[in-house]
């Protein structure tokens, strides 16, 4: 990974972090009137992997989709308009924050029903395989998604038909407030991949360099061999499950654990990497400033954008 690459990764990471912080900050003004599941803490899982994808590769996501959408190059303007429920939202305001999609950029669909997008993603990979295309499909899933039966149905199918799909699992060890311990036997997901003879790799989802380098070769492997792959990225969500705040006062997770992961903050980590690589700090600051300016501009646009007309509500039920 050269410095240019690192800087480019940092831009993506910082964009995601900053957008999410801004949502968090401004949410209480009551203009983003839909549930939001922030990705703060989990940015490297999105950026590290997705940065290795081609524009034509496809990504599917879940309720926590902001980071995936932005990492894949989705329009920030359209994302914010969507969250604000405005006309220029990426789906015109019908979906809200949990249904982000940007077809031009290959973020095909985000579905807020746990595991629900796995089927669609697998079907997309089937399509790629049947067409003998060179694309790959990435399906992002949380640790809880491994509890829904449809994951296994699709893993079986993907393995049986040898489909070019990457199951990218962000293990933040929680489903809402419920610890992984209360839902699965242990936190090593290799066992699920093994059940279908699917290749598996476990990564530290806080480390952008690790995720980036390792997923680069995985993606090449999948693209070349047309096989499924399971990537477990251990990570942590810094804010509450849904909403703009922090909820650690509810004591559903160990404060030591929280601190441990906060120390591993993916943004700070990336900064350290840049320092080590002697990337000029000024330059980094400029990058951040530019991103901040851009983000403010898009927020302003979204705030001022019109609400969609109620007449559009009845359109597109059928094609």
């Amino acid at each position, binding site marked *: 990974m050269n410095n240019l690459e690192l800087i480019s990764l940092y831009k993506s990471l910082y964009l995601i972090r900053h957008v999410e912080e801004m949502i968090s900050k401004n949410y209480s003004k009551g203009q983003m009137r839909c549930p939001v599941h922030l990705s703060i803490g989990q940015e490297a899982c999105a950026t590290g992997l997705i940065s290795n994808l081609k524009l034509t590769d496809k990504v599917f996501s879940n309720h926590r989709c902001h980071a995936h959408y932005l990492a894949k190059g989705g329009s920030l303007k359209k994302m914010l308009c969507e969250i604000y429920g405005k006309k220029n939202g990426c*789906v015109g305001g*019908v*979906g809200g924050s949990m249904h982000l999609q940007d077809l031009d950029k290959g973020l095909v669909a985000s579905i807020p029903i746990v595991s629900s997008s796995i*089927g669609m993603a697998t*079907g997309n990979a089937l399509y790629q395989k*049947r067409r003998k295309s060179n694309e790959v499909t990435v399906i992002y899933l949380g640790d809880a998604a491994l509890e829904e039966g449809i994951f296994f*149905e699709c893993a079986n199918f993907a393995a*049986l038909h040898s489909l070019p799909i990457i199951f990218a699992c962000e293990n933040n060890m929680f489903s809402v407030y419920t610890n992984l311990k209360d839902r699965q036997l242990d936190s090593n997901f290799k066992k699920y991949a093994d059940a279908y003879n699917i290749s598996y790799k476990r990564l530290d989802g806080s480390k952008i360099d690790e995720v980036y380098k390792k997923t680069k070769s995985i993606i090449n492997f999948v693209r070349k061999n047309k096989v499924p792959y399971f990537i477990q990225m251990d990570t942590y969500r810094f804010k509450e499950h849904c909403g703009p705040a922090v909820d650690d006062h509810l004591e559903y997770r160990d404060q030591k654990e929280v601190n441990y992961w906060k120390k591993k903050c993916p943004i700070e980590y990336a900064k350290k990497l840049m320092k080590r690589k002697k990337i000029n700090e000024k330059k980094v600051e400029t990058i951040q400033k530019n991103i901040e300016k851009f983000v403010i501009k898009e927020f302003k646009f979204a705030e001022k954008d019109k609400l969609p007309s109620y007449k559009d509500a009845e359109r597109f039920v*059928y094609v």
Partner: protein
Amino acid sequence: MSKTEILFTDAIKDAVYQSIKKDKKFFLMGEGVSDPSSMWGTIKGVSKKFGKSKTVEMPVAENGLIGVAIGSALNGSKVLINLQRVEFALYAFEQIINNAAKASYISRGKHNVPIVIRLVIGRGWGQGPEHGQSLENIFSAIPGLKVVIPAFPEDAKEMLISSIFDPNPVIFLEHRWLHYSKGKVENKFKIKKLSSFKKITNGSDLTLVANSINLLEAFRIAKLLRKYRIRLDLLNFCMPNPFDNNLLLKSVRKTRRIVSIDLSHKTLGLSSEIISTISDNKIKLKTFPIRLGLPFHPVPSSRGLVKNFYPSGKNILIAIRDALNISDKLFRKILNEYNKSTKKIPIDVPDPYFKGPF
């Protein structure tokens, strides 16, 4: 327009083969899609002839299966899915309702889901509580799905082709007993606009609404009654979702009398929507609308238990008598002729009349 008399199953097969020819992106998916039983013979030979290019054999995992079909279809593949019984689709309600039905709406029309889910429904040979439902009312309550219910072999071909080439997800409900019926079917490939109602016989005395197997019985009755100068406007309610009520309202404005027959339970069945639509449109009827359908309990297996379960020809005649105030004398005559014309057969096998040809 040349037609040939063929079986319902062959009409489906025709539709499948012609669709394969017409569209490179069309293929079949399902549990046993390549097996020798080939869904009552309806997809016979497809797998042998075209192999994996046109058939994808699936594990027994309905929710995953439909999800995969949706994912393929988003890219413009047209996918025909076969499930042997409607109940198996219950595993897949999540994908059908969350994704298939809503993808177009959520994406503002950018995603199309051109899949057809063939589901076998209905009565026969002790199928029992988990193999004999039809659930068309449930599918029809979901915006974004189309629900298509063929009756005649001609419908089967025409409507299946139209469903396959429809950009929306279509639930295609085939009554088990229809597979044995015969009728004249158009040879050529033809896409027709799907609509909720199809006029079967023309008359101004009473509107009779039915679909699937019930339509065949209704048709026999309409023909019988014509001899007695009772003329029914018989409507095939072949696409309950989306529900366009034009033809229905036109008919009822003319006849001002209606009998509507449900495949499923009467409670919250399609007839309830028909009756409500009529009153929404402030159409004054001369007599109260009558609906027939299944009582509100699961489908029992034993032929002893289904004795009064399905609406019979006699039930339909009684409903018509009540709606039209037919005199007892005339009614006895009609019933007599009906009874003579029908063979006494066990309740759990199809009436030979249902075999056609139509």
